[in-house]
Protein backbone atom coordinates (compact mmCIF):
# COMPACT_ATOMS: atom_id res chain seq x y z
CA UNK A 1 0.00 0.00 0.00
CA UNK A 2 1.31 3.42 -0.94
CA UNK A 3 0.59 6.71 0.79
CA UNK A 4 -2.04 8.93 -0.73
CA UNK A 5 -0.85 12.42 -1.59
CA UNK A 6 -3.80 14.74 -0.87
CA UNK A 7 -1.86 17.78 -1.95
CA UNK A 8 -1.13 16.26 -5.34
CA UNK A 9 -4.84 15.53 -5.82
CA UNK A 10 -5.72 19.13 -4.98
CA UNK A 11 -3.11 20.58 -7.34
CA UNK A 12 -3.92 18.25 -10.23
CA UNK A 13 -7.65 18.77 -9.71
CA UNK A 14 -7.07 22.53 -9.87
CA UNK A 15 -5.09 22.12 -13.09
CA UNK A 16 -7.75 19.85 -14.56
CA UNK A 17 -10.44 22.43 -13.76
CA UNK A 18 -8.43 25.06 -15.64
CA UNK A 19 -8.28 22.72 -18.65
CA UNK A 20 -11.95 21.80 -18.34
CA UNK A 21 -13.23 25.34 -17.80
CA UNK A 22 -14.45 26.00 -21.34
CA UNK A 23 -16.08 22.59 -21.70
CA UNK A 24 -17.83 22.77 -18.30
CA UNK A 25 -19.04 26.29 -19.01
CA UNK A 26 -20.48 25.25 -22.34
CA UNK A 27 -22.21 22.23 -20.78
CA UNK A 28 -23.73 24.38 -18.05
CA UNK A 29 -24.93 26.99 -20.51
CA UNK A 30 -27.04 24.32 -22.19
CA UNK A 31 -29.05 23.71 -19.06
CA UNK A 32 -28.15 26.00 -16.15
CA UNK A 33 -26.80 29.47 -15.67
CA UNK A 34 -23.39 28.72 -17.08
CA UNK A 35 -21.39 29.35 -13.93
CA UNK A 36 -20.28 25.81 -13.05
CA UNK A 37 -16.92 26.09 -14.85
CA UNK A 38 -16.24 29.39 -13.09
CA UNK A 39 -17.33 28.04 -9.72
CA UNK A 40 -15.22 24.87 -9.93
CA UNK A 41 -12.11 26.65 -11.23
CA UNK A 42 -12.49 29.57 -8.81
CA UNK A 43 -13.12 27.26 -5.86
CA UNK A 44 -10.07 25.13 -6.66
CA UNK A 45 -7.84 28.17 -7.07
CA UNK A 46 -9.05 29.46 -3.69
CA UNK A 47 -8.59 26.01 -2.12
CA UNK A 48 -4.96 25.83 -3.29
CA UNK A 49 -4.43 29.27 -1.75
CA UNK A 50 -6.17 28.27 1.49
CA UNK A 51 -4.07 25.10 1.67
CA UNK A 52 -0.82 27.01 1.15
CA UNK A 53 -1.77 29.61 3.76
CA UNK A 54 -3.16 27.22 6.34
CA UNK A 55 -2.12 24.25 8.37
CA UNK A 56 -4.87 21.75 7.51
CA UNK A 57 -4.99 19.04 4.89
CA UNK A 58 -5.79 19.60 1.24
CA UNK A 59 -9.31 18.17 1.51
CA UNK A 60 -9.99 20.29 4.61
CA UNK A 61 -9.12 23.36 2.53
CA UNK A 62 -11.34 22.11 -0.30
CA UNK A 63 -14.25 21.56 2.07
CA UNK A 64 -13.97 24.94 3.76
CA UNK A 65 -13.68 26.89 0.52
CA UNK A 66 -16.49 25.11 -1.31
CA UNK A 67 -18.86 25.32 1.68
CA UNK A 68 -18.16 28.96 2.51
CA UNK A 69 -17.12 30.73 -0.66
CA UNK A 70 -18.28 28.98 -3.80
CA UNK A 71 -21.55 30.09 -5.36
CA UNK A 72 -24.31 28.14 -7.02
CA UNK A 73 -26.01 25.12 -5.54
CA UNK A 74 -23.42 22.56 -6.54
CA UNK A 75 -20.47 24.39 -4.94
CA UNK A 76 -21.53 23.90 -1.31
CA UNK A 77 -22.77 20.37 -2.11
CA UNK A 78 -19.26 19.52 -3.34
CA UNK A 79 -18.04 21.12 -0.11
CA UNK A 80 -19.98 18.49 1.86
CA UNK A 81 -18.26 15.72 -0.13
CA UNK A 82 -14.78 17.20 0.37
CA UNK A 83 -15.41 17.67 4.09
CA UNK A 84 -16.52 14.05 4.52
CA UNK A 85 -13.48 12.83 2.57
CA UNK A 86 -11.23 15.01 4.74
CA UNK A 87 -12.74 13.52 7.91
CA UNK A 88 -12.33 9.99 6.59
CA UNK A 89 -8.74 10.52 5.43
CA UNK A 90 -7.88 11.84 8.90
CA UNK A 91 -9.17 8.65 10.52
CA UNK A 92 -5.99 6.72 9.84
CA UNK A 93 -7.37 3.78 7.88
CA UNK A 94 -5.77 3.04 4.52
CA UNK A 95 -6.42 5.74 1.90
CA UNK A 96 -8.57 3.65 -0.45
CA UNK A 97 -10.87 2.55 2.35
CA UNK A 98 -10.96 6.07 3.79
CA UNK A 99 -11.68 7.65 0.42
CA UNK A 100 -14.47 5.13 -0.09
CA UNK A 101 -15.97 5.83 3.32
CA UNK A 102 -15.70 9.59 2.82
CA UNK A 103 -17.29 9.34 -0.59
CA UNK A 104 -20.19 7.28 0.76
CA UNK A 105 -20.72 9.72 3.63
CA UNK A 106 -20.51 12.66 1.22
CA UNK A 107 -22.97 11.03 -1.14
CA UNK A 108 -25.38 10.43 1.74
CA UNK A 109 -25.10 14.07 2.89
CA UNK A 110 -25.59 15.39 -0.64
CA UNK A 111 -28.66 13.20 -1.10
CA UNK A 112 -30.12 14.24 2.26
CA UNK A 113 -29.74 17.89 1.29
CA UNK A 114 -30.43 17.84 -2.42
CA UNK A 115 -32.90 14.94 -2.46
CA UNK A 116 -31.54 13.76 -5.82
CA UNK A 117 -31.50 10.10 -6.81
CA UNK A 118 -29.52 8.28 -9.47
CA UNK A 119 -31.14 9.10 -12.81
CA UNK A 120 -32.11 12.67 -11.96
CA UNK A 121 -29.23 14.06 -14.05
CA UNK A 122 -27.15 15.48 -11.23
CA UNK A 123 -23.66 14.92 -9.84
CA UNK A 124 -25.16 11.97 -7.91
CA UNK A 125 -25.16 10.03 -11.22
CA UNK A 126 -21.35 10.03 -11.18
CA UNK A 127 -20.80 9.99 -7.43
CA UNK A 128 -22.98 7.01 -6.58
CA UNK A 129 -21.29 4.48 -8.93
CA UNK A 130 -17.87 5.85 -7.93
CA UNK A 131 -18.68 5.22 -4.26
CA UNK A 132 -19.74 1.65 -5.04
CA UNK A 133 -16.64 1.01 -7.14
CA UNK A 134 -14.30 2.30 -4.44
CA UNK A 135 -15.71 -0.22 -2.01
CA UNK A 136 -15.79 -3.21 -4.35
CA UNK A 137 -12.79 -2.35 -6.55
CA UNK A 138 -10.12 0.33 -6.55
CA UNK A 139 -9.09 3.76 -7.76
CA UNK A 140 -9.17 3.03 -11.48
CA UNK A 141 -12.54 1.27 -11.20
CA UNK A 142 -13.96 4.28 -9.36
CA UNK A 143 -12.68 6.67 -12.02
CA UNK A 144 -14.15 4.51 -14.78
CA UNK A 145 -17.48 4.21 -12.94
CA UNK A 146 -17.69 7.98 -12.39
CA UNK A 147 -16.90 8.63 -16.05
CA UNK A 148 -19.50 6.12 -17.18
CA UNK A 149 -22.08 7.65 -14.82
CA UNK A 150 -21.33 11.13 -16.14
CA UNK A 151 -21.51 9.94 -19.76
CA UNK A 152 -24.89 8.34 -19.12
CA UNK A 153 -26.38 11.67 -17.99
CA UNK A 154 -26.34 12.69 -21.68
CA UNK A 155 -29.47 10.60 -22.15
CA UNK A 156 -31.29 11.89 -19.08
CA UNK A 157 -33.79 14.65 -18.43
CA UNK A 158 -33.27 16.71 -15.30
CA UNK A 159 -35.74 16.34 -12.44
CA UNK A 160 -33.93 18.69 -10.04
CA UNK A 161 -32.40 22.13 -10.27
CA UNK A 162 -32.60 24.70 -12.98
CA UNK A 163 -31.99 22.20 -15.76
CA UNK A 164 -35.43 20.74 -14.96
CA UNK A 165 -37.05 23.81 -16.53
CA UNK A 166 -35.79 23.05 -20.03
CA UNK A 167 -37.06 19.48 -20.31
CA UNK A 168 -35.83 17.35 -23.22
CA UNK A 169 -33.53 20.07 -24.49
CA UNK A 170 -30.74 19.16 -22.06
CA UNK A 171 -30.31 15.72 -23.59
CA UNK A 172 -27.35 15.02 -25.83
CA UNK A 173 -24.64 16.33 -23.49
CA UNK A 174 -23.67 15.31 -19.98
CA UNK A 175 -24.51 17.12 -16.75
CA UNK A 176 -21.59 19.42 -15.87
CA UNK A 177 -21.74 18.57 -12.15
CA UNK A 178 -21.41 14.88 -12.96
CA UNK A 179 -18.46 15.62 -15.24
CA UNK A 180 -16.87 17.59 -12.39
CA UNK A 181 -17.19 14.57 -10.11
CA UNK A 182 -15.71 12.31 -12.79
CA UNK A 183 -12.80 14.72 -13.01
CA UNK A 184 -12.15 14.38 -9.27
CA UNK A 185 -12.06 10.57 -9.39
CA UNK A 186 -9.92 10.61 -12.53
CA UNK A 187 -7.42 12.86 -10.74
CA UNK A 188 -7.51 10.71 -7.58
CA UNK A 189 -6.78 7.60 -9.66
CA UNK A 190 -3.88 9.20 -11.52
CA UNK A 191 -2.34 10.22 -8.19
CA UNK A 192 -2.95 6.94 -6.36
CA UNK A 193 -2.04 4.67 -9.27
CA UNK A 194 0.37 6.56 -11.54
CA UNK A 195 0.94 3.50 -13.72
CA UNK A 196 -2.69 2.72 -14.42
CA UNK A 197 -4.22 3.92 -17.66
CA UNK A 198 -7.32 5.92 -16.78
CA UNK A 199 -9.25 7.74 -19.53
CA UNK A 200 -10.09 11.40 -18.94
CA UNK A 201 -13.77 12.24 -18.54
CA UNK A 202 -13.39 15.32 -20.73
CA UNK A 203 -14.49 15.01 -24.34
CA UNK A 204 -11.84 17.43 -25.43
CA UNK A 205 -14.02 18.89 -28.16
CA UNK A 206 -13.90 22.36 -26.69
CA UNK A 207 -11.01 21.98 -24.27
Amino acid sequence: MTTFDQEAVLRRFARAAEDAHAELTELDQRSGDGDFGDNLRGGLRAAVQRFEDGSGGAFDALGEVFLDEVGGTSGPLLGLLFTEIAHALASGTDPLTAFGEGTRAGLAAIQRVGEARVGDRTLVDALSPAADALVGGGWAEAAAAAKEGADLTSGLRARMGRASYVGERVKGAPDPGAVGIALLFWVAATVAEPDASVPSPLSGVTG
Partner: protein
Amino acid sequence: MAPPLHPADGDPVPPALRGFAKAHADLVRLHEDPAHLVARHRDPARRVGLVSGGGSGHEPMHAGFLGRGMLDAVAPGKVFASPHNKQVLAASRHAAGPDGVLHVVKNYTGDRINFGIAAERLRLEGIEVRRVLVDDDLATESDETATGRRGTGATVVVEKLLGAAADTGLGLDDLAALGAEFAGASRSLAVATRAQTSMHTGRPSFALEDGELEYGVGIHGERAQRTISRPPAEELVDRMLDEVVAGLPAGPDEVVVVVNGLGGTTLLELYGLHDLVSDGLARRGLDVVGALVGTFVPALDMAGFSLTLTRLRPSWKPWWTAPAITPAFPRSTAPTTEETR
Protein backbone atom coordinates in the same frame (compact mmCIF):
# COMPACT_ATOMS: atom_id res chain seq x y z
CA MET B 1 -42.68 55.21 -11.19
CA ALA B 2 -40.54 56.62 -8.42
CA PRO B 3 -37.63 54.38 -7.48
CA PRO B 4 -37.51 53.12 -3.88
CA LEU B 5 -35.73 55.20 -1.22
CA HIS B 6 -32.81 52.88 -0.55
CA PRO B 7 -29.76 54.59 1.01
CA ALA B 8 -27.35 54.04 -1.88
CA ASP B 9 -26.82 52.10 -5.04
CA GLY B 10 -26.12 48.47 -4.44
CA ASP B 11 -27.51 45.91 -2.05
CA PRO B 12 -30.25 47.50 0.10
CA VAL B 13 -30.16 44.67 2.66
CA PRO B 14 -27.07 45.53 4.77
CA PRO B 15 -28.15 49.11 5.63
CA ALA B 16 -31.66 47.87 6.41
CA LEU B 17 -30.26 45.21 8.75
CA ARG B 18 -28.16 47.82 10.54
CA GLY B 19 -31.13 50.16 10.84
CA PHE B 20 -33.32 47.33 12.12
CA ALA B 21 -30.73 46.39 14.74
CA LYS B 22 -30.43 50.01 15.85
CA ALA B 23 -34.18 50.45 16.07
CA HIS B 24 -34.58 47.27 18.15
CA ALA B 25 -31.31 47.26 20.04
CA ASP B 26 -33.11 46.17 23.21
CA LEU B 27 -34.33 42.98 21.52
CA VAL B 28 -31.84 41.91 18.83
CA ARG B 29 -28.15 41.89 17.97
CA LEU B 30 -26.75 42.00 14.43
CA HIS B 31 -23.67 40.15 13.21
CA GLU B 32 -22.72 41.43 9.78
CA ASP B 33 -20.30 38.80 8.43
CA PRO B 34 -21.87 36.44 7.69
CA ALA B 35 -25.11 38.32 8.16
CA HIS B 36 -27.37 36.99 10.89
CA LEU B 37 -29.38 38.39 13.78
CA VAL B 38 -29.90 36.90 17.22
CA ALA B 39 -32.45 37.57 19.94
CA ARG B 40 -31.07 39.03 23.15
CA HIS B 41 -33.54 37.24 25.41
CA ARG B 42 -34.90 33.74 25.65
CA ASP B 43 -36.98 31.84 28.15
CA PRO B 44 -34.63 29.83 30.39
CA ALA B 45 -36.91 26.81 29.98
CA ARG B 46 -36.25 26.69 26.22
CA ARG B 47 -34.04 23.71 25.27
CA VAL B 48 -34.09 24.06 21.48
CA GLY B 49 -32.96 27.09 19.52
CA LEU B 50 -35.42 28.22 16.84
CA VAL B 51 -33.79 29.46 13.65
CA SER B 52 -35.43 30.75 10.52
CA GLY B 53 -34.44 32.82 7.53
CA GLY B 54 -34.96 33.36 3.86
CA GLY B 55 -34.82 36.05 1.24
CA SER B 56 -35.19 39.70 2.16
CA GLY B 57 -38.01 41.86 0.83
CA HIS B 58 -40.53 40.19 3.18
CA GLU B 59 -39.98 42.44 6.21
CA PRO B 60 -40.85 42.23 9.03
CA MET B 61 -40.36 38.46 8.45
CA HIS B 62 -38.13 36.94 9.79
CA ALA B 63 -36.05 39.31 11.92
CA GLY B 64 -39.20 41.00 13.23
CA PHE B 65 -40.11 37.75 14.98
CA LEU B 66 -36.88 37.48 16.96
CA GLY B 67 -37.28 37.58 20.69
CA ARG B 68 -38.62 35.90 23.77
CA GLY B 69 -41.51 33.67 22.78
CA MET B 70 -40.56 33.34 19.11
CA LEU B 71 -37.26 33.00 17.20
CA ASP B 72 -33.71 32.85 18.57
CA ALA B 73 -31.76 33.66 15.39
CA VAL B 74 -32.40 34.41 11.73
CA ALA B 75 -30.39 34.42 8.49
CA PRO B 76 -31.55 37.06 5.98
CA GLY B 77 -30.60 36.53 2.32
CA LYS B 78 -30.44 39.13 -0.37
CA VAL B 79 -33.76 40.35 -1.76
CA PHE B 80 -35.82 37.30 -2.74
CA ALA B 81 -32.74 35.04 -2.50
CA SER B 82 -31.97 32.26 -0.05
CA PRO B 83 -29.40 32.99 2.65
CA HIS B 84 -26.00 31.35 2.21
CA ASN B 85 -25.47 28.16 4.22
CA LYS B 86 -22.74 29.88 6.27
CA GLN B 87 -25.27 32.49 7.46
CA VAL B 88 -27.61 29.73 8.58
CA LEU B 89 -24.69 27.93 10.20
CA ALA B 90 -23.61 31.04 12.13
CA ALA B 91 -27.18 31.82 13.21
CA SER B 92 -27.67 28.21 14.33
CA ARG B 93 -24.47 28.14 16.36
CA HIS B 94 -25.68 31.22 18.24
CA ALA B 95 -29.14 29.81 18.75
CA ALA B 96 -28.35 26.22 19.68
CA GLY B 97 -29.80 25.10 22.98
CA PRO B 98 -28.94 22.00 25.02
CA ASP B 99 -31.26 19.99 22.74
CA GLY B 100 -29.99 21.52 19.51
CA VAL B 101 -31.58 23.61 16.80
CA LEU B 102 -34.86 23.55 14.91
CA HIS B 103 -34.84 25.15 11.44
CA VAL B 104 -38.09 26.70 10.22
CA VAL B 105 -37.79 26.67 6.43
CA LYS B 106 -40.18 27.95 3.80
CA ASN B 107 -40.52 25.47 0.97
CA TYR B 108 -38.28 26.85 -1.77
CA THR B 109 -35.49 24.84 -3.39
CA GLY B 110 -32.76 27.34 -2.48
CA ASP B 111 -33.84 27.63 1.14
CA ARG B 112 -34.12 23.87 1.50
CA ILE B 113 -30.65 23.31 0.12
CA ASN B 114 -28.91 26.06 2.08
CA PHE B 115 -30.56 25.16 5.39
CA GLY B 116 -29.83 21.52 4.56
CA ILE B 117 -26.13 22.15 4.02
CA ALA B 118 -25.97 24.14 7.24
CA ALA B 119 -27.69 21.24 9.01
CA GLU B 120 -25.05 18.80 7.72
CA ARG B 121 -22.28 21.10 8.95
CA LEU B 122 -23.95 21.45 12.35
CA ARG B 123 -24.20 17.67 12.67
CA LEU B 124 -20.48 17.41 11.94
CA GLU B 125 -19.97 19.85 14.84
CA GLY B 126 -22.11 17.68 17.10
CA ILE B 127 -25.19 19.93 17.14
CA GLU B 128 -28.52 18.15 16.65
CA VAL B 129 -30.72 19.68 13.94
CA ARG B 130 -34.25 19.07 12.70
CA ARG B 131 -36.29 20.94 10.13
CA VAL B 132 -39.89 22.15 9.91
CA LEU B 133 -40.97 22.83 6.35
CA VAL B 134 -43.70 25.44 5.84
CA ASP B 135 -45.69 24.76 2.65
CA ASP B 136 -49.07 26.45 2.85
CA ASP B 137 -49.66 28.08 -0.55
CA LEU B 138 -52.59 26.38 -2.26
CA ALA B 139 -51.85 28.14 -5.55
CA THR B 140 -48.85 25.86 -5.98
CA GLU B 141 -50.57 22.60 -5.08
CA SER B 142 -49.96 20.19 -7.92
CA ASP B 143 -49.48 16.48 -8.31
CA GLU B 144 -47.28 17.02 -11.35
CA THR B 145 -44.22 18.62 -9.80
CA ALA B 146 -42.00 17.38 -7.00
CA THR B 147 -41.44 20.85 -5.60
CA GLY B 148 -44.69 21.03 -3.62
CA ARG B 149 -46.52 24.03 -2.21
CA ARG B 150 -44.62 27.25 -1.54
CA GLY B 151 -44.18 28.53 2.00
CA THR B 152 -45.85 31.90 2.60
CA GLY B 153 -48.03 33.56 5.25
CA ALA B 154 -48.40 30.54 7.53
CA THR B 155 -44.75 30.97 8.49
CA VAL B 156 -45.74 33.60 11.06
CA VAL B 157 -48.28 31.28 12.67
CA VAL B 158 -45.86 28.36 12.72
CA GLU B 159 -43.10 30.49 14.25
CA LYS B 160 -45.44 31.89 16.92
CA LEU B 161 -46.79 28.50 17.97
CA LEU B 162 -43.35 26.87 17.90
CA GLY B 163 -41.86 29.66 20.00
CA ALA B 164 -44.39 29.26 22.76
CA ALA B 165 -44.18 25.46 22.58
CA ALA B 166 -40.38 25.62 22.81
CA ASP B 167 -40.71 27.70 25.98
CA THR B 168 -42.46 24.81 27.71
CA GLY B 169 -39.15 22.94 27.55
CA LEU B 170 -40.05 20.46 24.84
CA GLY B 171 -37.20 18.53 23.17
CA LEU B 172 -36.12 18.63 19.54
CA ASP B 173 -38.10 15.67 18.21
CA ASP B 174 -41.32 16.79 19.90
CA LEU B 175 -40.95 20.31 18.56
CA ALA B 176 -40.16 19.12 15.03
CA ALA B 177 -43.26 16.92 15.08
CA LEU B 178 -45.40 19.77 16.40
CA GLY B 179 -44.02 22.18 13.81
CA ALA B 180 -44.98 19.77 11.05
CA GLU B 181 -48.49 19.61 12.52
CA PHE B 182 -48.76 23.41 12.70
CA ALA B 183 -47.68 23.74 9.07
CA GLY B 184 -49.91 20.85 8.04
CA ALA B 185 -52.94 22.53 9.59
CA SER B 186 -52.33 25.76 7.59
CA ARG B 187 -53.21 26.83 4.06
CA SER B 188 -52.92 30.18 2.26
CA LEU B 189 -53.87 31.95 -0.95
CA ALA B 190 -52.71 35.35 -2.22
CA VAL B 191 -53.96 37.87 -4.76
CA ALA B 192 -52.40 41.02 -6.20
CA THR B 193 -53.72 44.08 -7.95
CA ARG B 194 -50.25 45.45 -8.71
CA ALA B 195 -46.83 43.77 -8.96
CA GLN B 196 -43.99 44.84 -6.72
CA THR B 197 -41.53 47.43 -8.04
CA SER B 198 -38.59 45.71 -9.67
CA MET B 199 -35.28 46.40 -7.93
CA HIS B 200 -33.64 46.49 -11.35
CA THR B 201 -35.97 48.59 -13.50
CA GLY B 202 -37.93 50.64 -10.95
CA ARG B 203 -41.12 49.52 -12.71
CA PRO B 204 -43.75 46.92 -11.77
CA SER B 205 -42.28 43.44 -12.21
CA PHE B 206 -45.24 42.36 -14.28
CA ALA B 207 -48.08 44.29 -15.89
CA LEU B 208 -51.69 44.12 -14.75
CA GLU B 209 -54.37 46.15 -16.45
CA ASP B 210 -56.89 48.10 -14.42
CA GLY B 211 -59.62 45.72 -13.44
CA GLU B 212 -57.32 42.69 -13.49
CA LEU B 213 -56.31 40.60 -10.53
CA GLU B 214 -53.45 38.12 -10.19
CA TYR B 215 -55.09 35.16 -8.44
CA GLY B 216 -52.68 32.83 -6.63
CA VAL B 217 -49.64 35.09 -6.72
CA GLY B 218 -46.32 34.25 -4.99
CA ILE B 219 -44.33 36.41 -2.60
CA HIS B 220 -41.37 36.91 -4.95
CA GLY B 221 -43.30 38.29 -7.88
CA GLU B 222 -43.93 34.82 -9.29
CA ARG B 223 -46.98 35.33 -11.44
CA ALA B 224 -50.09 33.37 -10.69
CA GLN B 225 -51.36 30.65 -13.00
CA ARG B 226 -54.45 32.82 -13.57
CA THR B 227 -55.10 36.49 -14.17
CA ILE B 228 -58.80 37.13 -13.64
CA SER B 229 -61.02 40.15 -14.03
CA ARG B 230 -61.26 41.76 -10.66
CA PRO B 231 -64.40 40.93 -8.68
CA PRO B 232 -65.77 43.16 -5.90
CA ALA B 233 -64.03 42.59 -2.56
CA GLU B 234 -67.01 40.69 -1.11
CA GLU B 235 -67.01 38.24 -4.00
CA LEU B 236 -63.22 37.91 -3.99
CA VAL B 237 -63.05 37.10 -0.28
CA ASP B 238 -65.86 34.59 -0.67
CA ARG B 239 -64.05 32.83 -3.49
CA MET B 240 -60.75 32.78 -1.61
CA LEU B 241 -62.41 31.48 1.56
CA ASP B 242 -64.10 28.72 -0.40
CA GLU B 243 -60.75 27.62 -1.76
CA VAL B 244 -58.74 27.90 1.45
CA VAL B 245 -61.37 26.18 3.58
CA ALA B 246 -61.67 23.41 1.00
CA GLY B 247 -57.87 23.07 0.94
CA LEU B 248 -57.52 22.78 4.71
CA PRO B 249 -57.12 19.25 6.01
CA ALA B 250 -59.91 18.19 8.37
CA GLY B 251 -59.58 19.31 11.96
CA PRO B 252 -61.06 21.49 14.66
CA ASP B 253 -63.46 24.32 13.78
CA GLU B 254 -61.40 26.87 15.67
CA VAL B 255 -59.02 28.76 13.41
CA VAL B 256 -56.35 31.41 13.44
CA VAL B 257 -56.64 33.73 10.46
CA VAL B 258 -53.95 35.93 8.96
CA VAL B 259 -55.01 38.76 6.64
CA ASN B 260 -51.59 39.75 5.40
CA GLY B 261 -50.74 42.76 3.27
CA LEU B 262 -48.27 42.16 0.45
CA GLY B 263 -46.52 45.50 0.98
CA GLY B 264 -48.57 48.07 -0.90
CA THR B 265 -51.93 47.58 0.76
CA THR B 266 -53.21 49.87 3.52
CA LEU B 267 -54.41 48.77 6.93
CA LEU B 268 -57.67 50.50 6.03
CA GLU B 269 -58.08 47.96 3.24
CA LEU B 270 -56.81 45.01 5.29
CA TYR B 271 -59.18 45.62 8.19
CA GLY B 272 -62.06 46.02 5.74
CA LEU B 273 -61.09 42.70 4.18
CA HIS B 274 -60.83 41.09 7.61
CA ASP B 275 -64.41 42.16 8.34
CA LEU B 276 -65.48 40.20 5.27
CA VAL B 277 -63.18 37.28 6.14
CA SER B 278 -64.53 37.00 9.70
CA ASP B 279 -68.15 37.06 8.59
CA GLY B 280 -67.40 34.57 5.83
CA LEU B 281 -65.72 32.19 8.26
CA ALA B 282 -68.63 32.45 10.70
CA ARG B 283 -71.04 31.59 7.88
CA ARG B 284 -68.94 28.51 7.18
CA GLY B 285 -69.14 27.41 10.80
CA LEU B 286 -65.56 28.27 11.66
CA ASP B 287 -64.73 30.05 14.90
CA VAL B 288 -61.97 32.67 14.70
CA VAL B 289 -59.97 32.38 17.92
CA GLY B 290 -57.04 34.46 16.76
CA ALA B 291 -56.41 37.01 14.03
CA LEU B 292 -53.39 38.79 12.64
CA VAL B 293 -54.19 41.72 10.38
CA GLY B 294 -51.34 43.73 8.94
CA THR B 295 -48.23 43.45 6.82
CA PHE B 296 -46.21 40.48 8.06
CA VAL B 297 -45.02 38.67 4.93
CA PRO B 298 -44.99 41.13 2.03
CA ALA B 299 -43.42 40.91 -1.42
CA LEU B 300 -41.63 44.27 -1.36
CA ASP B 301 -44.39 46.76 -2.29
CA MET B 302 -46.82 44.47 -4.09
CA ALA B 303 -50.44 45.57 -3.77
CA GLY B 304 -52.62 42.73 -2.61
CA PHE B 305 -53.09 40.41 0.32
CA SER B 306 -52.82 36.83 1.39
CA LEU B 307 -55.27 34.88 3.46
CA THR B 308 -54.00 32.15 5.78
CA LEU B 309 -56.06 29.81 7.92
CA THR B 310 -54.69 27.47 10.58
CA ARG B 311 -56.95 24.98 12.33
CA LEU B 312 -56.04 25.34 16.00
CA ARG B 313 -56.22 22.32 18.26
CA PRO B 314 -57.36 23.08 21.80
CA SER B 315 -53.93 22.20 23.20
CA TRP B 316 -52.29 24.75 20.86
CA LYS B 317 -54.43 27.67 21.99
CA PRO B 318 -52.25 28.77 24.93
CA TRP B 319 -49.28 28.85 22.54
CA TRP B 320 -51.10 31.26 20.27
CA THR B 321 -52.05 33.61 23.10
CA ALA B 322 -48.74 33.45 25.00
CA PRO B 323 -46.93 36.80 24.86
CA ALA B 324 -44.12 37.27 22.33
CA ILE B 325 -41.73 40.12 22.93
CA THR B 326 -40.46 40.82 19.43
CA PRO B 327 -40.11 43.84 17.13
CA ALA B 328 -43.06 42.93 14.93
CA PHE B 329 -45.43 40.34 16.36
CA PRO B 330 -48.46 42.09 17.89
CA ARG B 331 -48.43 41.56 21.64
CA SER B 332 -52.17 41.50 22.07
CA THR B 333 -53.22 38.30 20.41
CA ALA B 334 -55.49 37.06 23.19
CA PRO B 335 -59.09 36.48 22.11
CA THR B 336 -61.41 39.11 23.59
CA THR B 337 -63.61 36.69 25.51
CA GLU B 338 -62.70 37.88 28.97
CA GLU B 339 -63.47 41.56 28.85
CA THR B 340 -62.86 43.42 32.05
CA ARG B 341 -65.21 46.28 31.34
